[in-house]
């Protein structure tokens, strides 16, 4: 049986590791939902890049190895990169323009399209307009974000 794959946006990881808040709770439920329904959360180097940047900015430290290790050891999370060609990068620029997505968001959206990932776990409403992506709803929460 092939486990369903869900792309995990950076904001889910950031809120999860942050001190208690409404969004931390929701992020936790998303991770719990992946585990409960045996789904795989996919992250890549672009997610880690944003995560890394935020930690440096927030903590003003370069000692972030353990933070990244924490993200990589989350249950049901898989790290997977793919190679982008010149044509891919042009497609990403087109997606950014068409759907009004920021650069990294366009990379995430295109990655999902190329990898045939149909759902993204995110709090970013910008993804609502990408026709091949559905915002992942944890079956364990009753969020209304």
């Amino acid at each position, binding site marked *: 049986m092939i486990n369903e794959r869900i792309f995990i946006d*950076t*904001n889910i990881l*950031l*809120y*999860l*590791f*942050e*001190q*208690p*808040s409404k*969004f*931390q709770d929701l*992020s*936790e439920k998303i*991770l*719990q939902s992946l*585990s*409960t329904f045996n789904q795989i959360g996919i992250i890549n180097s672009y997610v880690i*890049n*944003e995560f890394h*940047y*935020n*930690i440096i*900015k*927030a*903590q003003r430290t370069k000692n972030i190895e353990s*933070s990244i290790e*924490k993200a990589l*050891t*989350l*249950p*049901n999370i898989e790290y997977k990169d793919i190679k982008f060609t010149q044509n891919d990068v042009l497609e990403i620029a087109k997606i950014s323009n068409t759907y009004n997505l*920021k*650069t*990294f968001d366009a990379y995430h959206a295109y990655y999902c399209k190329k990898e045939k990932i149909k759902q993204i776990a995110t*709090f*970013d*409403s*910008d993804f609502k307009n990408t026709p091949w992506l559905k915002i992942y709803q944890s079956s364990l929460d009753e969020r209304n*974000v």
Partner: protein
Amino acid sequence: MVNKKNYTKKNPQIFELKDKPLTVYKSGNSNVITIPSYLDIKPGDKILLGNIKKIDSETERIARDFKKIKELSGSMKLGIKNMSPEELDDFLEGVYD
């Protein structure tokens, strides 16, 4: 059900089932493992079991995952907890500076 494609016969005495767990059942006072009939093992044959690895039940696995998530959750001070997703998005914008 175990598919024949999922096992290899290395030699007449060694069978290797790939990624297919065998389930232990209760039968009277004994625990019984069912062996697929296409394997050349007959009633009365004696076999040695080695490298037995118990696979967690779904409930055990989920409980372990939840515990791990709880342990990691809230383990950093990033200063973003009061930010809305939109504010966080703007904060992350600096990644392009």
